[in-house]
């Protein structure tokens, strides 16, 4: 049962990576080893996800359980089932909010 599940994950993952590599989101293709690390907010803050997390939900462990393709291995094996509650993806093209600091009245509806 377990092995079937693992096989399914792999098939799904490869399908996904193939799909994503042709997607409209250049920031969010497959991670390359060592190249995509993002700085943490502070020491002890959870690492950020340098690849698309939404489309790969539910398959984190396919790479991160054993470190496939250079993926960091999860250091907290008892907490492997709700990754996205601490680790979030990043769209690096997005600038800080608010873009322009405005205290003025906004457009009327």
């Amino acid at each position, binding site marked *: 049962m377990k092995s079937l599940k693992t096989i399914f994950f792999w098939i799904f993952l490869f399908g996904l990576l193939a799909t994503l590599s042709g997607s*409209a989101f250049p920031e969010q293709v497959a991670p390359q080893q060592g190249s995509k690390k993002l700085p943490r*907010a502070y020491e002890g803050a959870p690492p950020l996800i340098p690849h698309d997390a939404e489309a790969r*939900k539910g398959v984190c462990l396919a790479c991160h359980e054993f470190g496939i393709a250079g993926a960091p291995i999860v*250091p907290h094996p008892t907490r492997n089932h709700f990754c996205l509650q601490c680790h*979030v993806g990043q769209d690096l093209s*997005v600038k800080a909010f608010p873009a322009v600091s405005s205290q003025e009245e906004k457009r009327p*509806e």
Partner: protein
Amino acid sequence: MKLSRRELLKTLAGAGAAIVSSSGAILPGSVGQAQAAEPAAEAWKKSPCRFCGVGCGVLVGLREGRVVAVRGDAEAPVNRGLLCIKGYSLPKILYGPDRYKVPLLRQGNKFVQISWSQALDIMASKFKEAIQQHGPESVAAYFSGQTTIFEGYAINKLMKAGIGSNNIESNARLCMASAVTGFYSTFGMDEPMGCYDDFELTDTFFVWGSNFAEMHPILYSRMVERKHQDSNVKIVSLQTYLNRSTDEPADIVAIFKPHTDLAIANAMAHVIVKEGLINEAFIQQHVTFKKGLTEIGYGVEDNFEYGGALETSWKTYKPFADKAQAISFEEYKKFLETYTPEYAEKLSGVPADTIRRIARLLGDPKRKAISCWTMGFNQHVRGTWINNLVYNLHLLTGKIAEPGNSPLSLTGQPSACGTTREVGVLSHALPGGMFVANPEHRKKTAHIWNVPVEKISPRPGYHTMEMFRALDRGDIKVIWINTTNPFQTLPHVSRYRKGARKGGERFVVVSEVYPSETARHADLILPSAMWVEKEGMFGNTERRTQHWFKMVDPPGEAKDDLWQIVELAKRLDLGHLFAYGEEPLQKAIFEEYRQFGQGSGKDLAPYDVYAKVRGGLRWPVVEGKETRWRYREGFDPYVKKGEGVRFYGQPDGRAVIWARPYEPPAEQPDKQYPFWLTTGRVLEHWHTGTITRRVLELHRAVPFAPVWISSEDAGALGIKTGDSVRVQSRRGEIVTKAQIGGRNTVPKGVVFVPFFDENVLINLVTLDAYDPISKQPDYKKCAVRIEKA
């Protein structure tokens, strides 16, 4: 198993550096070498998280007068060392570049800097003028479920005992009012009987219309851990669309059409009764049956009254009150006959067999059961009813008020329970679960407040929706909005935004930390301190009261809200309300507030105990001991020996099973507006995003609010993910990008838009219908049309 896990967590949380080095050791060149943006902390102090109602304990890392880090507190029983990404982002919420640092007064379309004494003088003179010319009902205060206990108590006392106006509300009206009326009507007393310990003690979870994987992440992770420890554990997730709370490891997922939870819950009761899964002895000893009024309307009219208002003046207006009528068990059974699983299937789309399976799981005498819900139930034009209906299921089976058996109403905000509900920061309430309309309650309150009893008005003030309608009509002249953002969050918000800026004698004061939609509609903006920039206390979902001390200074001239309240009081010649002598103000306020709870079942520990204890205590705290399960002998000190179970909130000690029918919602899709719109939140952003969007990591994780649309509907309309889409209702429209799939998958005919994004102001579209019993609006359903923009 549990011990070793705890130990591991302690080790992990005990040293952030250990995580880094261990992962680094496993995989050199990986996450371990990421740079730290802030220097390491010099000192750590305890505080609850300032976000959701779960109430996680955090350790706040301090260095040179700044918050530089947080850790989940391994000693905190709620989260045992873990936090969600919002919690981990706490250090950064304080340091956005556009924090308000000085008071600002509107001049035309601009704001100009003024001094605190000018600001407070202007504010006080506006209050005085309105009170003198139009009476105390012409002023209002609108606070928050994020207001601390001290602040909530002070503003409540200032308004009700000083100014003599009951126009004091909390934004918690928008998120938990139906939970409160549900508790009162069923148990005669507010707040859950169980606690989070039930998550490890139960074996069956029922999650109703709540994406708590995103909104209460730490509790969700406790459920998932439980599931992974014990394969016998079953999770049933009933939702209106697929989301993270329907993902693995949910065992049964039921997607129902919005609003039909009423029919499903009654159908479950139908199956439980028909198949003999009831607990006959429990029902005989501890339950009565009642029915209430039906066809109660939707509150969309100003001054809404049951059966239609003849008189539109609020002075003669009688807010809706339900009328209970006792019925027999036989009559209740007769009521249930309509609600066959097949009937519920017709309304809800959930197969009758699935409803049977879910009901049998809940009824299985060998299983324990807990039910969890939040906004799906509470933001519901029949919110009180659906709260009643889920209690029915637990009362019929006797699965209540004991370890592992509990209905648990989850709370959205960190102190919606501790402040709004327990301190009574609502237009009809008084501290300690009392009501302004009750002469005995006014007497007790006046005694503790040391004011003449005539000072406290017996008339409930405006509830939130009517308060902002009154501002629009001009009946309210001056309003103080604090720690909340109604001009983004009120449903049908265009009316209330315009109302605020209609001029005349209206004057809107907003205490804020960052520019928000509400601050932009203000006449006067007061810069506030937030979280550990002040001392505070919060009370979470499971009756847990937690305390923190001030740790850092607020920026610029920003001041904490308690100071603002007391300074206003002084200028209104009401400073005596807060003249406590030498004692620190916070401690004095809490010790006075504590008198309301003593001996009433809501006993709180002394201030000094909360100041010390890590992770807080669950009330009633009697003789130094907290209470985990209420209404049960051996756990609750208020249940006498030999009583077994006693629902002592009700005069006869019996909880009520309510016959509450299915009634349609205020608005349903039709030819012109063929889609359901449902609104809500995302994990990464807190409510209107005012603070979380200023954290770069959170903003980059979810930079804007898309509209989730089903692939079938998108296909039919020629819409792809990323296309601009117009979402339009009878009230207004927004344009945003389409999202097909991802974390949510909506069924055909439903669209979902989160409300955090001020540039995608979805509340221009929503409907301001509310539950007449709770006065809480329904953000989960209105009719819209969709087109490519």
